[in-house]
């Protein structure tokens, strides 16, 4: 069995030549590997910091904001940054910094709820579909689920958003749900391919040989092992959901006045872009930070969970 040519962290085999008795020595303390694991995970740290920043912004806004969100000061309309208004003011004279803090709440909520819906519905569907695919008679159930997935993919998220907005009056709620539902196929596909891979592994064969039932195997073996892939999908889905909400407000469907959200700020700053670009700059910057944060956090968590990473360590 030739060892893995990866240097630092190849384990010392239990060739206990000189010292210890027949029992193998305790596993070699993997100093080499722990430090490399930390370096590998700088993306998780940066990501976590960014997410904490955004979260902090949102939480602080519950307690304190420089001005009230609907506090207008028509005289100080469209001012650039000043000590009174560090980020300047919008067309109604409202403080942009306050709006960024309030907007953090909505944008986080949109991202988290939309991804939550897609994750909690899409992943189980993917797992169930993969489990059926493995059963002899289950093939066509898997096909039905996957085709339904395609149809949902084919259904424009926009149409769902319009219908929900029409039935329940436009607002953050319907937009979130529509964006969430539109993201379900992505998760189902990732979960299904991950589950198929895990079900084919020898440790699942060992589990079935020791009488574990399929549902138990799904929870104990499948979920932890596909967690890495699902997390990456979640971080990408977060980015897409936040932007979709911004896009929807472009069509008048996302968060409605007077509720502040970064998407709406972006959209409403559109006509001031050539005269007051900072109105678009601040929400755009914070959306980028939030998305970057979640993506890096996703990558970091994925490395932490990814068996390939661990296998490399073995």
């Amino acid at each position, binding site marked *: 069995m030739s060892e893995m040519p990866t240097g630092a962290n190849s384990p010392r085999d239990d060739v206990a030549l000189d010292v210890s008795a027949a029992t193998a020595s305790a596993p070699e303390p993997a100093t080499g590997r722990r430090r490399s694991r930390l370096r590998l995970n700088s993306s998780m740290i940066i990501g976590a910091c960014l997410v904490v920043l955004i979260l902090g912004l949102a939480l602080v806004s519950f307690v304190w904001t420089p001005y009230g969100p*609907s*506090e*207008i000061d*028509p005289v100080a*309309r469209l001012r650039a940054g000043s000590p009174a208004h560090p980020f300047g003011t919008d*067309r*109604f*004279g409202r403080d942009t910094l306050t709006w960024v803090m309030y907007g953090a709440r909505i944008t986080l909520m949109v991202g988290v709820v939309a991804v939550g819906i897609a994750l909690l519905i899409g992943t189980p569907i993917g797992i169930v579909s993969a489990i059926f695919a493995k059963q002899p008679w289950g093939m066509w159930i898997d096909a039905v689920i996957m085709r339904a997935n395609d149809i949902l993919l084919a259904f424009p998220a926009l149409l769902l958003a*319009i219908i929900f*907005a*029409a039935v329940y*009056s*436009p*607002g953050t709620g319907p937009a979130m749900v529509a964006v969430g539902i539109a993201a379900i196929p992505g998760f189902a596909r990732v979960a299904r391919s991950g589950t198929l891979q895990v079900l084919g592994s020898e440790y699942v064969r060992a589990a079935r040989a020791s009488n574990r039932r399929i549902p138990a195997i799904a929870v104990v073996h499948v979920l932890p092992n596909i967690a890495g892939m699902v997390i990456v999908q979640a971080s990408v889905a977060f980015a897409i959901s936040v932007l979709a909400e911004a896009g929807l407000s472009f069509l*008048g*469907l996302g968060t*409605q*006045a*007077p509720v502040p959200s970064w998407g709406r700020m972006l959209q409403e700053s*559109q*006509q*001031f*872009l*050539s*005269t007051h670009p900072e109105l678009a700059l601040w929400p755009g910057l914070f959306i980028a930070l939030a998305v970057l944060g979640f993506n890096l956090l996703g990558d970091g968590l994925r490395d932490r969970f990814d068996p390939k990473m661990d296998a490399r360590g073995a």
Partner: protein
Amino acid sequence: MKTPRIMTWVAGAAAVSLLLTACSAGASDSGEDAKKDSMTIAFTAEPVNLDFTSTSGVAIPEALMENVYESLVRLDGEGEIQPALAKDWSLSDDRTTYTFELQEGVKFSNGADLTSEDVKYSYERVQKDWKNALKSKMDIVKSIETPDDDTVNIELKKPSNTWLFNLTSLVGAVFDTEGTKDLANEAIGTGPFEIEKFTRGQSIDFAARDDYWGDKPALNSVQFKYFKDAVSASNALKSGEIDLVSNLQAPELADEYQSDDYQIVSGTTNGEVVLSMNNAKGIFKDKKAREAVMHAIDRKAVLDTAWAGYGELIGSMVPPTDPYYEDLTGVWKYDPKKAKELVDEAGIKGEEFSFTVPNLPYAKAISEIVSAQLEEVGLKAKVTTQEFPAVWLDKTFTEHDFDMSVINHAEPRDILTVFSKDYYIGYDDAKIKKIAEKADTGTEEEYISGMKEIAKTITDDAASDFLFLFPNLVIAKADIEGVPANRVSDAFKIADLSWK
């Protein structure tokens, strides 16, 4: 690691090919100097089809009236009735029968001659086949005779001051007896232009008719281009692809055109932006609550922040271009202290009411500042945006399921319709019903004094808060002449436009 040679080659090729197409194509497109006799005009509301007999809304008459279709009479810039297809007209002594003399040698765009028969056919059709509710303006017509090809006698059930004015609107459009088979897609009229191409949702191309009866228009090809997004329209004007923006829906952009390359024309329209309150049921049934709102709103601030100050303050449902206009802005002064007292008296402090807002640019902007001002006096508005037109028409307009809303009533002289009992505002019009009846049948003077009294009554009842008159904000290239300042009638007359 040196940069891989193969990779830079691929990226370089992609960039070069992109640039090549740009430069070569660029040259052929920008050189359009020989366009002195054509013009491209940007609009926002796009016509769904060409048939205003069964589809309402501003877009269709804006394109067709006085360009393709003409009525017997028309309104000039100051709102005076002028001759059009009718050379001259006279009114019988009992003021019930009008006799119109038609212009000679008028041809429809399909070549047919205009005869009194066409007028009779068109106006009887309004009563019989039209779906558009504006047809009610023809209900007063008792009978139409055509003694000869050039004269038409129209007898009314009773004298009416408003009827001749109504004839200047789309209700008075004259169709060819053979020209109403496919109105949705084909418009055959007597006007100076005919429709060359109608690409739905995109644009309408007009071509000047050389067999037009009146004086030939300066331009011989005009394109109306429809922009759903106001900023794109403005960008198109800046980059020179269009020549005129008919009504800029993003007034904040207007001050970018304060230069001698462009001209900014800000006139009036018939659109009153009304902060309507449900007078029939809910929190605003009580007049005191409505009065509180009237004092709570600083209309100047609303105009400045929501629509960048373009537009006029009006105190009532009457635009300045109407004969019976009276400046009632002083009736309800902005007085937050008084408003707070009224709120306490009415006992509605902190009580939440539904403020339904159509998702239109002006409405959303107004809702933000109005809800903030109301909050300052203790009135709690729960803003729910509704998709316009479908959901707002269904929930607010038809089911009257609202306490407060905001909409621009764009139809000319619509004070009586908007404040009739079964209209969505639910105003108790018992007081004004008799006055209106008398005014319409009375003399010119009686008509004007009656309408003034009606407007005053409505304003005093605080039925709704008239925020401002929607501006006719036209941005055009400097060297364009004949840009209409005020939009008095349904029409956007392109015959007046020309290049210097």
